[in-house]
Structures are given as structure tokens and as C-alpha cells.
């Protein structure tokens, strides 16, 4: 049944299913009162993967049908300028912590990813693909490929980092014993890009603005560090 309907008019069907999955996941999160294990992003991705498998269509069919949704990543990312603009004065006052946390965070992200993967005996393809895992998806895919890894694997790593980060973000203040929501926001955005931002926006507006800044800064910083690393490797 589902298969026949999906094949008949793929675009409206898959767009509808994606919207329904997202709406239902948001509802579940509300029911669970925002429990960290009820993650709307993870839930809707799982639901869609299940549906694709049941429908007998391929991921390529689904991706083609839902391209009109994917297109909005661009303007939605650019929209992140708005909360930054709102909190510009606050950000200016915190330029030193931002710079310090950026240098430490970006370096730890790349070095620890490389170190742990290498310790566990990862293949070179995997090793290079996970280096940009903390960076926002569209940028990480380009970086992963540039480094000699694969865009799809980089994307997978980005997703896992995002899911981890969105679960970790609410626990950070207790873990590190500091309750500054600016620090939590910046760490969430730097380590878990869009997923971290979504969580930070749920904490408060200020955390959201710092999360966006964290994501934007880290995209720049990681691109620079990886560029340097690849130049050094080429020698």
C-alpha cells in the first residue's frame, strides 16, 4: 500500500511524511517534557528511515522527493544572523572568552577525533572523514572530501556528533560545574553545530546566540586548521 502511494506521487508523499514525522516528534518531546532521550531530530530521522525501508523505495528516491525541504537549509542558516545581531553587544563584551574557547575547542575537536580513531585502528578513509565532524553539515562535507575522505562518511560523523551534542548540552553545566548559559551555548554550537544550536535555543535566547557564534566560528577555524594540516601532510 505505502509503496504504491509513495511511487505514485513521491514529492507530496515524502514531504508530507517528513513534516508529519517532525511534527509528531515535537509533540512527543512536549509529552516527555523535553527529556533528553526524546530527541525530535533523532526520532524523525529514525521514523523516516523506517518508512523508506517499508516503502521499497531507495534513499535517492526519498532525497529527490524532499529536495524542496533541503533547499531551506541555506536561508535557515543565514537566518542565524538575526540572534547574533540581537546579542551583538553581549558578544562584543565576551570576545576574549570566545576567542580562547574557539582555539581550544577547534583544536580539541580535530586532535581528539584523530587520536581516538587512530587508537581504535580506523582505516585512513574513515580517519580523514571524521576530522570535520563538529562542523555544520554543508561545510563538513566539503572539508571531508578535500581531506581525502568521503562526503557521505563525513556527513555520518557530523550526524553522530550532532546527536551526541544535543544530548550532552543540557548536562554540560552539571559536568563542568559552571552555569553560565553563554558558555553552554558556545560549547553546544562549536561541538554540535545545528543540533547544538537547536538545544541551546531551548535553554535561552542568549545561549542560542552564542551557539550560533560557536558554529560559525568553528566552521571557519576548522577549515583553516585542516587546510594547514593538509599543506603540512603534502610536504
Amino acid at each position, binding site marked *: 500500500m505505502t509503496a504504491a502511494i509513495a511511487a505514485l506521487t513521491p514529492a507530496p508523499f515524502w514531504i508530507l511524511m*517528513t*513534516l508529519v*514525522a*517532525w511534527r509528531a516528534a515535537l509533540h512527543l518531546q512536549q509529552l516527555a517534557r523535553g527529556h533528553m532521550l526524546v530527541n*525530535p*531530530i533523532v526520532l*524523525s*530521522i529514525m521514523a*523516516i*528511515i523506517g518508512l*523508506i525501508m517499508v516503502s521499497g523505495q531507495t*534513499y535517492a528516491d526519498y532525497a529527490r522527493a*524532499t*529536495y524542496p*525541504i533541503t533547499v*531551506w*537549509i*541555506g536561508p*535557515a*542558516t*543565514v*537566518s542565524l*544572523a*538575526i540572534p547574533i*545581531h540581537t546579542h551583538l553587544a553581549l558578544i562584543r563584551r565576551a570576545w*576574549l*572568552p570566545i576567542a580562547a*574557547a*574557539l582555539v*581550544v*575547542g577547534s583544536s*580539541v*575537536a580535530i586532535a*581528539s577525533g584523530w587520536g*581516538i*580513531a587512530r587508537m*581504535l*585502528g580506523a582505516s585512513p578513509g*574513515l580517519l580523514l572523514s*571524521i576530522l570535520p565532524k563538529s562542523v555544520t*553539515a*554543508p*561545510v563538513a562535507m566539503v572539508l571531508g572530501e578535500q581531506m581525502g575522505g568521503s562526503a*557521505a562518511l563525513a556527513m555520518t*560523523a557530523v550526524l*553522530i*556528533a550532532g546527536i*551526541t*551534542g544535543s544530548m550532552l548540552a543540557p548536562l*554540560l553545566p552539571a*559536568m*563542568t560545574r*559552571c552555569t553560565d548559559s553563554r*558558555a553552554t551555548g*558556545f560549547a553546544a554550537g562549536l561541538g*554540535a553545530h545545528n543540533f*547544538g544550536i*537547536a538545544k541551546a*535555543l531551548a535553554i535561552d535566547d542568549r545561549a542560542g546566540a552564542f551557539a550560533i557564534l560557536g558554529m560559525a566560528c568553528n566552521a*571557519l577555524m576548522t577549515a583553516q586548521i585542516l587546510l594547514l594540516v593538509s599543506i603540512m601532510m603534502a610536504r
Partner: protein
Amino acid sequence: MDDHEPARPSGAPTNLVGTGSDVVTGLCLLFGAQWAGDALARLFGLPIPGTIVGIGLALVLVGFPMGRSLPIAARPLLHNLPLFLVPIGASLINQAEILRHEGFVLLLAVIGSTVLTMAATHVTFAVTMRWIEGQRR
């Protein structure tokens, strides 16, 4: 960010027609900033991702009178940002082969590194913040 009502510049009359065209103006600016950012980054071979240039351009645009429409278009997009990532996220389905062989390594490395990254960032930020706030006093 919590209310879904479009933010009007203070004192401006609220009418539905105005709001509708404001949304379109805002969307033009958002897509325009994204497109121009991408084009600039490619044209000049900038080592900065195009989307980041786009954020910078939007940051400049908000300052202009026309830019008042930006928050109106941006708000619903920001509220549902993760929705737009669902189709790409579902591409996990195609990684089954690699995940079967090296999935455990990938999972462990990425989770471990993300925890370290966020903890280190959080602590560095908080400690530096405390230090400069102590200096100001």
C-alpha cells in the same frame, strides 16, 4: 524568539498585507544573502564557507530599513531548523555497509571526541569569562 508573532518595528502599524509582503521581502534577503555569499566565496576563492559569508552579509543587511523584514522571515525558519536536516540525516540508511565494518570505531571516536570538545570549550569559556569579569571589578 518564544512568540510566533512577527516583530514589528516599534510604532509601525500592524496590518496583514504589510506582514505578508514583509515575509517575501525577508525571504528575498535571506536567499539573496545565501546566494551572494556562495558566489563571493567561489569567485574570490575565499577560504571561508559561502554560508558563513552569507551570515555576515545578513548581519550587515539587518541594519538597513529594508532589513527589518529579515527577522519576520527568519523566525519560523529558526524555529524549525532541524526539520530541514531530516532528509540529509536519513542518508544514514546508505551507510549500513561501512557502519557494519567500522561503525563501532566511528561511533566511539565521534562520541568521545564530541564530549571532550564540548567540555573543553565550556570550561575554557567559563574560566576566561570569570577571569575578565574579575579584572573589570
